[in-house]
């Protein structure tokens, strides 16, 4: 069986640098790919206002005038033993959901590596979630992991942090998003008095359609945040183990409104575990 993914004919995809006036279209595209990437001001602060900005640093891929790929490159010096090394950082790679799995990400990386080489960069950096597709691809083409200083977080409102984390997780995992939507039940997360549903996170609230559906509540303990904080950076196996551990430690409880809701969830539990 030929496992190679189908490639889009090169002539269908036009690659070009950023041009002033593209900002609104780029933003719509990034918000579609990332769920909630940000505003035009954020994009401009990151790119056009950057000290070494050049319009070639942003690569856009188009099919019939519609943006289907975006990749940024930031050039800057890196100081090692008081010597300056010119480096490039690959940022904000995004491929339209319709065109994923067709080799566009690999092309985006390749184009930007060529650009970095042509500008005399001796090192290229990039940041990815461990185990993600871009991480695996970059590892295959010779990138290695580099140790960096850790990040610390002070949580003031745990409920908002959990909601944001779940929002991010769902919008970056198309499969999980679809699986949860097809559950046929309303899934709620509760932390103290704070409560929100997956429908709210998926921005697909339609009360009429969902009236007769069962309800499942996942009640989280405040301490669960300390375990959940690094959920995004975990491998699939570790994520499943963490969820099981949270249930066993009674830091996460599951409540059902009806037997039907329990059955619906039980039926889909394997699909959820697979896509998590």
């Amino acid at each position, binding site marked *: 069986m030929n496992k190679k993914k189908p490639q889009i004919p090169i002539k269908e995809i036009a690659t070009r640098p950023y041009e002033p006036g593209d900002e609104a279209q780029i933003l719509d595209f990034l918000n579609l790919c990332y769920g*909630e990437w940000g505003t035009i001001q954020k994009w401009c602060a990151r790119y056009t206002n950057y000290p070494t900005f050049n319009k070639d640093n942003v690569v856009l891929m188009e099919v019939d005038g519609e943006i289907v790929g975006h990749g940024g490159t930031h050039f800057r010096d890196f100081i090692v033993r008081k010597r300056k090394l010119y480096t490039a950082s690959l940022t904000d790679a995004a491929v339209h959901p319709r065109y994923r799995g067709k080799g566009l990400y690999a092309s985006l990386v390749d184009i930007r590596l060529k650009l970095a080489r042509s500008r005399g960069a001796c090192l290229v950096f990039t940041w990815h979630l*461990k185990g993600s597709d871009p991480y695996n691809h970059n590892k295959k083409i010779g*990138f290695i992991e580099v140790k960096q*200083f850790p990040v610390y977080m*002070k949580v003031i409102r745990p409920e908002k942090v959990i909601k*944001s984390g779940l929002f991010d997780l769902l919008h970056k995992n198309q499969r999980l998003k679809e699986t949860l939507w097809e559950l046929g039940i309303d899934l709620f997360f509760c932390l103290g008095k704070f409560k929100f549903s997956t429908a709210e996170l998926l921005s697909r609230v339609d009360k009429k359609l969902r009236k007769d559906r069962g309800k499942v509540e996942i009640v989280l303990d405040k301490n669960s945040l300390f375990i959940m904080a690094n959920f995004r950076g975990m491998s699939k196996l570790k994520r499943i183990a963490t969820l099981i551990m949270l249930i066993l430690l009674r830091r996460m409880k599951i409540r059902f409104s009806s037997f039907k809701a329990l059955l619906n969830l039980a039926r889909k539990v394997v699909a959820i575990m697979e896509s998590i």
Partner: protein
Amino acid sequence: MIVRTYRQEDLQYLIRLYNHTLAESPHFIRDENFLKYFMHCQGVNEDSIFVASVNDQIRGLAILSITTEEGGLKQGNIMELQAQDVSSVHVLIQATLNYCKGKDVDTIVVVPPRLPGANVVFKDWLKLNTGVMMAKALSLSSLLQALLSNEKIRIFFVGKKKKIAFQIGDDIIKVGNIDGGTKEPAILVIMSPQTFLKIVFGQVSPYMAYLTRRVRVRGVRNALPIVKLLCMMKLSIPLYVSLADRI
């Protein structure tokens, strides 16, 4: 010690502060252009840049930006936090916390500076495993030259008449007594670019790489000095990558 907001005339002193605090850590450049850029990033206000000083001597800097993230989370990002001592870190963190309280922030994130005892300040903070930083070498010769500029390595080469030829992937880079006029053949060291980078960034021990034949050295008696040289090339301190760097 006092904490006040940033003034334009502080810039040159801040660059001096960075030169002092980041002297040992590999880091991205922090010159006038970049510091000004950090201070104009999204969510940074004039009153959210804090400077710690003692008798008008600048001891630390914190640049805070407040952004609204996924799902409406209001996040305080301490984009830059540099200080000469732990007490400066403490007062700067206190100032940013007070500022964030007034702005109804849900969470605050920071990359603490590398200072002995700084962990005490962050003892009730969550340590996060964020995205993994990855690196790939495009030109090995400039990286090798930078790594060999270490004082210890210069001493290592003094008195050694032999040249060393690093064959890293398809590149051959000769170092050592190149102009010494010696006719002796160079010591050939063969490895892949990935192994070289892993050694440099401390992911693989040069001894282990040699024993597992990921590093090959021509001539058994040359092996030990070459492995020692590779150990000296290793960057022993992790990269300082602040939130402002993680674009």
